[in-house]
């Protein structure tokens, strides 16, 4: 089964191409083919996983050469796949959660005339993401990296007949390009330093180059990761990306796109291990995004945007963990895995709520949906408990470990990062509870034409499966350190570290903050009446509601000066360069026009000119000028 890994990518890709090429003929069954392709990938992945579990942990790395891709001069790139516990984890997450989202989409997109195309894009997304995680070199990874960028662009802008949706897709695409430039530069630096782009060559030689080079590579890789994973300062596209159909949001946030950045950092652990500077920056970016995303989430009234802010914040946790180095890598991936389940479940839940509420996304118009949508309420509730980090739900096992790891270290760092992670947990509890209570509890605030109802089974079934994962997966994988042991061949074995605060104390603080968050949210949004119109915001709320004016900041700091610079350059080009060229031309023309007047054809004027010239010459000789 391990040798069939290429099927993982080939099957969804082929299905995607077929769906696009067949056109309307596939309208009737195209969506089922999409589901089948995704399921097939999952089955292949599962087979590979079972086979891998049967091997010793040392021999679980399976590299596979496919074909020589580029060979020219010093550059020689083979297309090959690398299946190890890390990529296997991603394969399972992408295919399993992806397949559930496919199933859900069959019902969710039922009335969309372009459902077939939607499934073609979904399959493309899955294929690109699998290529990204299975590639054995940075260059092949980049193909998948661009592939998910393309697929996300197509899916976010799926309803591109609305201009603002198309704009959102463009924004995601453009912001991602900024990150991609980072990856391209990183690859250039790696090629200069190591002469190769394959993981094995690069990681084998990391000890031979200077720390400065490694730091440069690490930082450029981080730029790439911030773009894909919507981290500070390239996070502004994520909220707008909610314009896409809800299953897309689930797919982007849980299994594909935004997890790619974390994957890149953890995959490049060999590089980051040797450069403390780059790691510190990674951790800082994670910490900033984690708090920032949480604060933004506290003020959003749009249920999908609140969830998007939550993703940003949770990915911030993963980045923070990844930046902590060997003690954090495994937990970053662990949290990514559990987050994949509960976030996908909650996004699908949000889609179910929207389905029942005529596509309303304003939470101030919800309320008391728990009786109308029992299944959604329960499954969403499990996801909510999981993201809160309430034991024994999934999020507890992964997030708590990250908070503990953040408190490990020396000097100021554990205090800053640890407290950021700790406060983030409290904020998370608040905004997620706010979302949960506003949607499902309190008094009904919807209008008479709304008839909230439970979604069909095809919608609820994936939610149920995901909620089971949200509830149990963390506990299952954490017990006996199953997951960390599994990842050890990639992330390395880590000895126990003592945090600067005692572990039980950290756990108590975390749970206490979570409880406070939930209670405050309950008092504000569960027990008391929620106004249907947002009250006049305080300064902080204004900030958070507008994503800290990141768009304005970007516009002011980057776009405006850029525009001015290009305008100046255009002006300079027109005035100076063109001016000089055209000026020479017109100048000569004018001179010609002027001289032409002397060419009157009149003998006497020629004679006069001659006389004046001779007189001038003589005068010159006499006066000694010439």
């Amino acid at each position, binding site marked *: 089964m391990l040798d069939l890994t290429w099927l993982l990518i080939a099957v969804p890709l082929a299905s995607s191409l077929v769906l696009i090429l067949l056109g309307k003929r596939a309208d009737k069954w195209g969506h089922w083919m999409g589901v089948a392709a995704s399921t097939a990938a999952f089955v292949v992945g599962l087979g590979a996983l079972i086979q891998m579990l049967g091997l010793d942990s040392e021999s679980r790395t399976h590299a596979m050469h496919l074909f020589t891709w580029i060979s020219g001069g010093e550059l020689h790139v083979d297309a090959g796949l690398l299946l190890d516990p890390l990529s296997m984890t991603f394969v399972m997450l992408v295919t399993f959660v992806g397949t559930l989202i496919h199933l859900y989409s069959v019902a969710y997109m039922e009335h969309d005339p372009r459902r077939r195309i939607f499934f073609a894009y979904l399959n493309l997304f899955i294929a690109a993401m699998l290529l990204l995680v299975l590639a054995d070199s940075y260059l092949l990874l980049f193909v998948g990296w661009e592939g998910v960028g393309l697929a996300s662009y197509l899916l976010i802008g799926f309803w591109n007949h609305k201009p603002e949706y198309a704009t959102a897709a463009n924004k995601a695409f453009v912001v991602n390009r900024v990150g991609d430039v980072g990856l391209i530069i990183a690859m250039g630096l790696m090629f200069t330093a190591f002469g190769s782009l394959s993981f094995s060559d690069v990681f084998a030689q990391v000890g031979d180059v200077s720390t400065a080079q490694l730091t440069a590579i690490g930082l450029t890789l981080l730029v790439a990761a911030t773009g894909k994973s919507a981290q500070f300062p390239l996070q502004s596209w994520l909220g707008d990306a909610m314009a896409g159909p809800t299953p897309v949001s689930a797919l982007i946030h849980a299994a594909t796109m935004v997890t790619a950045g974390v994957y890149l950092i953890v995959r490049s652990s060999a590089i980051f291990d040797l450069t403390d500077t780059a790691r510190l920056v990674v951790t800082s970016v994670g910490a900033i995004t984690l708090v920032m995303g949480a604060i933004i989430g506290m003020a959003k009234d749009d249920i999908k945007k609140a969830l998007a802010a939550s993703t940003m914040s949770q990915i911030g946790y993963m980045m923070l963990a990844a930046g902590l180095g060997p003690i954090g890598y495994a937990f970053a991936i662990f949290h990514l895995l559990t987050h994949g389940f509960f976030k996908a479940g909650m996004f699908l839940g949000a889609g179910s709520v929207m389905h029942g509420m005529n596509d309303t996304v304003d939470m101030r118009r919800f309320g008391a949906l728990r009786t109308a949508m029992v299944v959604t309420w329960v499954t969403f509730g499990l996801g909510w408990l999981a993201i809160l980090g309430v034991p024994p739900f999934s999020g507890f096992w992964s997030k708590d470990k990250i908070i503990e790891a953040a408190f490990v270290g020396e000097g100021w760092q554990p205090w800053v990062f640890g407290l950021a992670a700790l406060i983030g947990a409290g904020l998370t509890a608040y905004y997620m509870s706010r979302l949960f209570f506003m949607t499902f509890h309190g008094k009904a605030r919807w209008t008479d034409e709304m008839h909230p109802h439970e979604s069909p089974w095809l919608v609820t079934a994936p939610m149920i499966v995901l909620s089971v994962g949200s509830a149990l997966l963390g506990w299952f994988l954490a017990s006996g350190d199953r997951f960390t042991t599994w990842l050890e061949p990639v992330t390395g074995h880590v000895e126990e570290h003592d945090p600067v605060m005692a572990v039980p104390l950290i756990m108590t603080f975390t749970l206490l903050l979570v409880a406070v968050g939930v209670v405050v949210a309950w008092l504000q949004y569960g027990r008391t009446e929620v106004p249907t119109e947002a009250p006049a915001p305080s300064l902080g709320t204004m900030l958070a509601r507008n994503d800290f004016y990141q768009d304005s900041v970007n516009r002011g700091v980057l776009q405006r000066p850029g525009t001015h610079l290009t305008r100046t350059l255009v002006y300079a080009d027109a005035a100076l360069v063109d001016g000089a060229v055209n000026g020479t031309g017109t100048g000569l023309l004018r001179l010609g026009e002027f001289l032409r007047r002397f*060419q009157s054809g009149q003998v006497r004027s020629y004679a006069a000119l001659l006389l004046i010239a001779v007189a001038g010459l003589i005068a010159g000789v006499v006066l000694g000028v010439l």
Partner: protein
Amino acid sequence: MSPIAFVYLATVLFGIGAAAVLTRRNAIIAFMGVELMLNASNLALVAFSRIHGEIDGQVMAFFVMVVAAAEVVVGLAIIIAVFRARQTISLDEPAELKG
């Protein structure tokens, strides 16, 4: 009588000749002006020759006379050709070489 007076005379003659060339429309008159200028220069050459006590100025005057004779031949031929073509000897009318 100082030879320099001849140079002054030559200057005056040259001025008159130049003025005739520049102001008169009639080609013949202008031609005569040219001759006058040539004669003025001959006079000046001979005068300088006397002033310096050398004869190369006089030799050059002969050259000028030869050139003048040749010029008369060519110039009169052109004037006649123009007159045949346009029935006029005005200098201002033919302007075909206008730029």
